[in-house]
């Protein structure tokens, strides 16, 4: 077994070879040995061979037709503009399926045709290749190691302590620099600046309670057992990530036991809790008014509103923060207002949170 860079054949010998023989010689020069090679159809022109060829050709014809069909559909044979049902042509509904179907058909046909071509019509071969995988020769390893070690020795890093120390310093500092650069450019101090505190939201004393359209909410807007997602009525209040608050009207007979120091947070039979789940920040929005359970659909944390939104199942650990709720009289109508911000950070917990 030998590796040869060039086939060991003279020009005259090469000239004597047929193409196939030269191909085999080339393979053997790379230690690739064709141990078995045979035409699939030893007798040319049999029915079986023609059938195979025609089947492959049929695949390519299908690929051609499907591609042409795709182009025709794409270029306007089927409209693609969306219309409401009953207003304008609904044929656009066929556009995407036709495109995908025809493209898939065309690609599948060309793919299957190609594979069949290889499997049915190319000569059958069994080829064995030498892996040359005995690992680097020991001599090679020693020579390479010696090159590395000697080169390292020549630099003198081992004995020139000053250079070793200083290049270490320079390399270390320069190595850290890109990280400092990137982090330094992107870093933001948490809880600093307006609207950037994890401990505070846009709610505050006297902030109006509004719905998602910005309209003020009054007690008459919610039936017993009902709820509404409300937001602080300040600029940006509806869009902010920590604003959403559930305003719940209890059913007659339902009571909520208040937490310590939060006795005045309820207004008559209305309670308001942060809607942001204390587990991972999804809006906990599925409320069962009969049982008073509130479910977060992301990870199935369940809160018992009647026990002051205490977590009763699932991965959440903290109760939903409660908003101190009050009303004010404007032009003879009662409207809800917040009597202050949430007394604690809303949403998922974090390191700095007590």
């Amino acid at each position, binding site marked *: 077994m030998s590796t040869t860079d060039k086939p060991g054949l003279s020009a005259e010998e090469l000239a004597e070879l047929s193409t196939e023989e030269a191909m085999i010689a080339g393979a053997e020069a790379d230690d690739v040995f064709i141990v078995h090679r045979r035409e699939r159809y030893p007798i040319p022109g049999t029915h079986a061979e023609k059938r195979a060829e025609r089947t492959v050709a049929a695949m390519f014809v299908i690929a051609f037709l499907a591609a042409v069909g795709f182009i025709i559909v*794409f270029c306007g044979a089927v409209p693609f503009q969306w219309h409401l049902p009953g207003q304008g042509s609904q044929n656009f509904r066929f556009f995407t*399926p036709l495109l995908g179907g025809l493209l898939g058909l065309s690609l599948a046909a060309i793919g299957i045709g190609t*594979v069949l071509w290889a499997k049915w019509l190319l000569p059958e071969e*069994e080829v064995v290749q030498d892996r040359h995988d005995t690992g680097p020769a020991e001599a090679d390893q020693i020579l390479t190691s010696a090159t590395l070690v000697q080169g390292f020795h020549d630099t003198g890093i081992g004995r020139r302590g000053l250079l070793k120390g200083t290049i270490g310093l320079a390399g270390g500092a320069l190595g850290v620099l890109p990280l400092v650069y990137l982090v330094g450019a*992107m870093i933001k101090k948490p809880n600093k600046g307006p609207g950037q505190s994890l401990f505070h939201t846009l709610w505050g004393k006297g902030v109006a309670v509004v719905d998602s359209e910005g309209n003020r909410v009054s007690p008459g807007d919610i039936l017993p057992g009902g709820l509404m997602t409300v937001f602080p009525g300040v600029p940006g209040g509806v869009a902010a990530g920590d604003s959403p608050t559930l305003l719940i009207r209890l059913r007659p007979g339902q009571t909520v036991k208040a937490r310590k120091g939060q006795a005045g947070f309820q207004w008559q039979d209305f309670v308001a809790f942060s809607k942001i789940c204390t587990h991972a920040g999804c809006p906990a929005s599925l409320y069962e008014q009969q049982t008073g359970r509130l479910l977060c659909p*992301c990870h*199935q944390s369940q809160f018992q509103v009647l026990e002051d939104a205490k977590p009763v199942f699932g*991965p959440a650990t903290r109760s939903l923060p409660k908003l101190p709720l009050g009303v004010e009289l404007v032009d003879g109508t009662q409207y809800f207002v917040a009597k202050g911000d949430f007394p604690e950070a809303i949403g998922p*917990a974090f390191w700095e949170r007590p």
Partner: protein
Amino acid sequence: MTATVNHDGPTAPGPKRFDKPRTPAGKAGRWADERLGMSGSVRNQLNKVFPDHWSFMMGEIALYSFIILILTGTFLTFFFDASMAEVRYNGSYIPLDGVQMSRAYASTLHITFDVRGGLVMRQIHHWAALLFLASMTVHMFRVFFTGAFRKPRELNWLIGLGLITLGLVEGFAGYSLPDDLLSGTGLRIAEAIMQSIPVIGSWVAFLVFGGKFPGTEIIGRLYIVHVLLVPGILAGLIGAHMALLIKQKHTEFPGPGKTEATVTGERMYPTYGLKAGGFFFIVFAVCAALGGLAQINPVWLFGPYNPAQVSSGSQPDWYIGFLDGSTRLFPSWEIRVWHHTIPPLFWPTLVLPGILFTLAGAYPFIEAKLTKDRAKHNLLNRPRDVPVRTGLGAMAIAFYSVLLLSGGNDLIAKAFSISLNAMTWAGRIGLLVLPPLAYLVAYWTCLGLQRHDREVLEHGIETGIIKRLPNGEFIEVHQPLGPVDDHGHGQLSYGGTPVPKKMNKLGSPHGGRIKGFLWPVREKAEIEAELAALEAAEAERDRQRELTD
């Protein structure tokens, strides 16, 4: 090995004698070679031998879906606007007319409804992404169960693991870009996960989001991560994965004529290349057909992201599902020390995948250490021959499956009218109980299969022929696979290859490989030759018997 070519039959008269180029292609080739001098190495690669086994296709599917992702993704970048600036929608999709949304979401709607063929391209891209992750995962199983990760291929195992990890990041980033209600919910959870890191959590979240959630930065940042940073690293790692594969060559299953020092199969050019090229088109065809016929991620139905809204049955793409499941199952254990908090979210979303991926990465080294196996392996194991490894793999799959199913436990609860809380508890218990069970089942199955292989080698194949002995006893006639000793026991030893267990698996050097998809394809001449050989062998046996008698 001697250089012999075994012409079993005539080959077609190839092109004429070969000395100097006459065709334009030949002249172009010579022109290039006179400048690059690469004909030797090109020939080497053209003649590279690829072994053939269906399980080797998984990695190919992953490679091809990556190419499809690049092609379709490039198209999408021409229309997508990764901006969180608010606009009022006024495109073709009437139900969202006049709704406030980010430009990212509006441009996704634009691609969907106002770019000709945009929707099908988006859906092909999404399906190809699911396929990319799925094929990498199955490819990893294949490599694991057959022991292909053993020396000298540990590095490629690690690169592969890196590809899967980055694939998860890439998929999540792409999923988040449209800024719809579903993906925004995913980002909200991602932010909560970042916040949960002890000590630096809120710093990390503020750094990534450029302030408090949602901010105005994240879509633009994810965009460049999704279209440049991660795909660039992925392409580099795929290149390294392939380069190592070419250098180390493929593994193959043991069998007749297979050795550690050689690789057996078909040459890259023309046969294997043609097959692989065809297979690329087949993979693309599946993605295209799915992209056209199977709706995926209909963002227009979800609406723009809004922190106050969520829909029930919120699910991530399948490859994030196991993390969603672990998050649902993990109990509400919060650690509070000295006015600081480590939220429960930290453990199932960061610590658990960290442990899982570290274990997976360390596995080849752990196995080598425990088995003291320092040898190079180019021939694969049959999973049954390494019961402990197969058991561990089954254990990992069971663990992962419980997490994945729990990621959709609300949908399962709804579909089968089971209590959601019962599903959660079933997941919690199943996560602890099922993996060891899976280990035992796989381990004993392996032993049983091994035993059966030995049994057939010793006693032969059951022929289904019942014979009555003179003493009245009934026995089944067994066909020995090879020479037998005085007691009629087979003398063949197990060679790590499939043992034929049915009569019609006998008679072929390829372990009974029968050609033909619907019915066996056999050529008349071949059959006649085999019959003649059989008859000759029988005649020889009779002659031998006559001589010995």
